[in-house]
């Protein structure tokens, strides 16, 4: 049977910026496989839609370069780790990732090309990197920060199709979704409505519920004190709050996503002027998150949500 195209539509996908549909052109029926390495060549050439449009990957890539820390985590999670030959200097997870001095923020197409990649994944198109790689005819997927959880699934699916790990990807996504659902279902706030302040840096930049991270935490039923600060979305969901507002809001939880970048922790928060009387500081409401986990939209979102859910649950139980 001649199958002209296989459309893999993820029901949950709704993002505008990232692919929702992955198309491949084959001459025979695609056979589902449960192995992790043997991917039928007939899956290629594959056409994947990323933020930079349709990208054709002629053959199963064996030399992937990732300039996105999140994409690196996704690739290893879906079993494409052995196809990855180089990752940028910020891709510090998983430990077996082949870290190089490639710079994600100031990349050079020539430096990337020196690894002879047959697929490149980026999250920022700085220095005209995309144009440079396109000129060199290197298939490149642009995957910017996900704005919604649906975009996360879409990026997983795109990487799965592009790397030839479709089935593994589907299984990983299903597992993450199940884990997230389990965390949400297992969070017992005892009927209390807890509020939280999410700190991106020590100058009080925060996130609203309209952001990816805000919507993720919102699944736990927590109230975000930053929402009124960007009601019109002018700050794209990342307003800078004032200390006065945070103290007056007196949130139950203070979630620190600036522990690695800026050496913030519960002790540092406790000595901030005027913060010592806040209930989160006086109690055990200051949660020290890992910046890397908190700033990526990859497989470790379960770890992040689980840590926050655990802290919220403990706080509710202690009340």
């Amino acid at each position, binding site marked *: 049977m001649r199958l002209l195209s296989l459309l893999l539509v993820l029901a949950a996908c709704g993002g505008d910026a990232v692919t929702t549909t992955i198309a491949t052109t084959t001459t025979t029926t695609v056979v589902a496989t449960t192995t992790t390495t043997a991917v039928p060549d007939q899956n290629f050439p594959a056409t994947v839609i990323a933020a930079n449009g349709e990208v054709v990957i002629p053959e199963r890539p064996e030399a992937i370069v990732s300039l996105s820390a999140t994409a690196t985590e996704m690739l290893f999670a879906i079993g494409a780790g052995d196809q990855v030959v180089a990752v940028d200097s910020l891709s510090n997870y998983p430990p077996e990732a082949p870290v190089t001095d490639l710079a994600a923020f100031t990349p050079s197409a020539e430096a990337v090309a020196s690894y002879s990649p047959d697929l490149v994944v980026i999250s920022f198109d700085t220095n005209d990197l995309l144009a440079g790689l396109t000129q060199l005819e290197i298939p490149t997927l642009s995957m910017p920060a996900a704005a919604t959880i649906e975009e996360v699934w879409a990026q997983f699916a795109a990487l799965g199709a592009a790397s030839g790990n479709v089935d593994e990807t589907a299984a990983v996504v299903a597992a993450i979704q199940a884990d997230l659902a389990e965390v949400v279902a297992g969070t017992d706030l005892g009927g209390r409505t807890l509020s939280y302040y999410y700190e991106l840096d020590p100058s009080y930049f925060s996130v609203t519920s309209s952001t990816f991270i805000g919507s993720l935490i919102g699944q736990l039923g927590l109230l975000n004190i930053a929402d009124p600060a960007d009601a019109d979305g002018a700050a794209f969901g990342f307003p800078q709050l004032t200390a006065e507002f945070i103290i007056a809001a007196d949130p139950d939880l203070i979630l620190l996503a600036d522990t690695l970048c800026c050496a913030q922790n519960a002790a540092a928060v406790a000595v*901030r002027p005027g913060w010592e009387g806040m209930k989160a500081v006086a109690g055990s409401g200051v949660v020290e998150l890992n910046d890397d986990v908190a700033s990526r939209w990859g497989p470790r979102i379960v770890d992040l949500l689980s840590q926050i859910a655990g802290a919220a649950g403990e706080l509710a139980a202690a009340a």
Partner: protein
Amino acid sequence: MMTARVSPFAWLLAGCLLLVAALAGLLIGPAGIDIGAALRGLVDALPGLTVTSGLTGQESAILLSIRAPRVVLGALVGGTLALCGGAYQGVFRNVMADPYLLGAAAGAGVGATAAIVATEGRGWVTPAAFLGAILAVYITYLVGRRGHDRSPATLLLAGIAVTAFLTAIQTFILQRNYGSLEEVYSFILGQLGTGGWGEVRLLAPYALIAAVVIIAHRRVLDVLTVGDEEASSLGLEPERIRRRLVVAASLGTAAAVSVSGLIGFVGLIVPHVIRLVAGSSYRVVIPLSMMGGAVFMIGADLIGRSVLSPAELPIGVVTAFFGAPFFLVVLRQSRRGL
């Protein structure tokens, strides 16, 4: 004709403006504290006075630990930057000189960046920023006065070159240390929002030294405006005086920048506004710039934390956004020259 001294009316007006700005900064904020209670709370905080304010513990903390140090810090930073800007303009006999054009801020930025990258905590940021500022202005001064051409344009070009060079170094350091990007970027944006009494204590001694030295030399700055030969004939040593003032102004600038980040515009604009409205003698420009800078910065900070409340606007944005049109209006309406 130069106005030789600050008139009592000008002192009174500047004092009233400072008082109004400080009270507005203390009484207005997103927490919505009752103004009467806040006033009583302020009186209660004065030594030797006890008044029942009616403030909750949280409101009291907001008033005395957030708003009060922020107002004082704004006054110190604004006053110091404007004072130092005025001093630079006198020292270099160039009305376009300000801490940024001469590279002091860029030097402080490099020093602070290096300290943030290389050390734990922020204990080294202030001394490193200070050293960077001193070095930057010294190089600018050294390069700008070499050769036959000692025109103001040469000095400005030297300042621009030094600033570009130091900015390149800062960018290079940042590119090699992505982990510090957020903290350094936050520093570069400039803000008073995270300042407390600790920052006030850090800045106050430097600001005091800079103020005492510069104010003590305000008459000498007037003499320097007529030329080095004339100043020498009056028994002054222009080079020594310049060095002293550059060190004092760089000290003040570096200290201000190290606690508030890179807040632009104040050091250039405030002295000019004072010149346009009160006269061009440094006996007037220096003290009134200090007062004007304090008022300007407290006002800018109040706007920054009120206009998008409860969100905040970086103060550097406010100083330029509101300061530039204001300066243009003053410039257009004034019949005086700079």
